[in-house]
């Protein structure tokens, strides 16, 4: 039988969390064609089709050529979907197959489990964002005018959608629920959030409607980080997205701390 040490070092205390995070990364690695390559290729096709083939026929927006203008929004969209999908499917599958019991029974704090599962989404989203940026640099010259702001914006985006994914993974009763949120809510909000156009080109009514779309602010923060331009005050947009990220984080933490949706 094992002899348990009475005092543990930080490295020993954090070991279960690090193994859980490694497991999340292993899952991404094992499914790399689906988890990494597919989203990068599909987003890159948007850049090629909308940017390069149609770009010449669309006039510059805010002094930026169309092929460059859409890249930040497409990178944001890819990161949103991948970070959300990763967390929601990982948590849902763990519940569905009940191997989450193995994790819940382990000597891990609830916040460590929550963080471990969400960090998988953060790192997958970040990887896809970087790969998509590198791929797009082969075909368009995308500047990074506000690097500090861009790092903050990307961090907030990834935190928001990774923890939101955890929440959806906890509430989902079937795989369809996860797909519903992704395809019926996130995707339309992203497309209508100014990825392909400036809201200044819309009628006043549609411009006002767009301002009610939370993804719009998120796209603006990432676009400002890259191009130094946005349709709204970038700090206001960052404030809105930060509040949403905190809501997702608190919601997810509450569910893990109370065990609701996680334990019968």
């Amino acid at each position, binding site marked *: 039988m094992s002899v348990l040490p009475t005092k543990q070092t930080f490295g020993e205390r954090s070991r279960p969390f690090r193994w859980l995070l490694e*497991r999340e990364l292993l899952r991404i690695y094992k499914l790399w064609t689906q988890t990494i390559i597919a989203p990068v290729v599909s987003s890159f096709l948007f850049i090629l089709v909308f940017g390069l083939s149609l770009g010449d026929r669309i006039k510059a927006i805010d002094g930026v050529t169309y092929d460059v203008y859409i890249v930040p929004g497409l990178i944001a969209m890819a990161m949103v979907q991948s970070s959300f999908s990763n967390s929601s499917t990982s948590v849902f599958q763990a519940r569905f197959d009940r191997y989450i019991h193995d994790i*819940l029974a382990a000597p891990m704090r609830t916040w460590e489990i929550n963080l471990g599962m969400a960090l998988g989404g953060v790192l997958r989203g970040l990887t896809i964002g970087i790969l998509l940026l590198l791929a797009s640099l082969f075909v368009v010259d995308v500047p990074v005018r506000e690097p500090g702001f861009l790092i903050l914006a990307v961090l907030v985006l990834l935190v928001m959608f990774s923890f939101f994914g955890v929440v959806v993974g906890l509430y989902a009763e079937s795989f369809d629920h996860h797909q519903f949120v992704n395809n019926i809510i996130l995707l339309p909000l992203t497309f209508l959030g100014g990825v392909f156009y400036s809201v200044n080109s819309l009628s006043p009514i549609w411009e006002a409607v767009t301002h009610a779309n939370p993804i719009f602010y998120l796209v603006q923060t990432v676009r400002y980080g890259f191009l130094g331009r946005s349709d709204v005050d970038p700090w206001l947009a960052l404030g809105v997205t930060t509040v949403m990220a905190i809501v997702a984080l608190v919601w997810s933490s509450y569910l893990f701390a109370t065990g609701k949706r996680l334990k*019968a």
Partner: protein
Amino acid sequence: MSISPPALDIRGLTKTYDDGFEALKDFDLRVEDGSFFGLLGPNGAGKTTLISAVCNIIRVTGGSISLFGHDHQTLHARRMVGFSEQDVNLDRFLTVKETLIYHGGYFGLSRADAHRRANELMDIFDLAPKADTRAPKLSGGMRRRLLFARSLMHEPRLVILDEPTAGVDIELRAELWEYIRRLHGAGTTILLTTHYLEEAEELCDEIALIRAGKLIARDSAQGLRDKYDAANLTDVYLKAMAA
């Protein structure tokens, strides 16, 4: 002389599910360190609820659970329990070896210790030829072996086995019995739930009978036979459940 705390001390445990079903009510149970304890009862009696509460995978409504003198929710207490569930609950993305290694990691083993222990258990349970096979591709018997091996990865002081031989062939059942006996012989406390009465009679020092969330009797197999004036444990069970 110091008296070691019981392996499991449950006091006033109550569990009411969200749909209002009361699975356990004011349930008390004490299992001594080093014992081999069996829980018997019909489906829905509360056996799985009881052990799920001990292992922190359900929310308890009331009462207290302590493991070797520590509250069951503390990290220290959790490290001392190994649990093999009745239903197969394996991570579909992991191979046999990874399943063992990651479980060891979740319970605090270092990488070197996790690899060493995984190799050891794969040899013991004849899992080595399937080391690189993912759980969904294993046969039912191999999955059962893997579940059992996983629960032992971190060398727990209390091993909880929920119907460990349900649906396995006679050969594997005999193998598992043999290993469980050896484990107990080495000082590990065993808490076993089973529907096979001969399994309880063969293995357990003490047996508790549960019905509708309440403990109705506990004693050795011989003690239960005497108490119910029964020839065998099957008669004991039928009389106790009909009473």
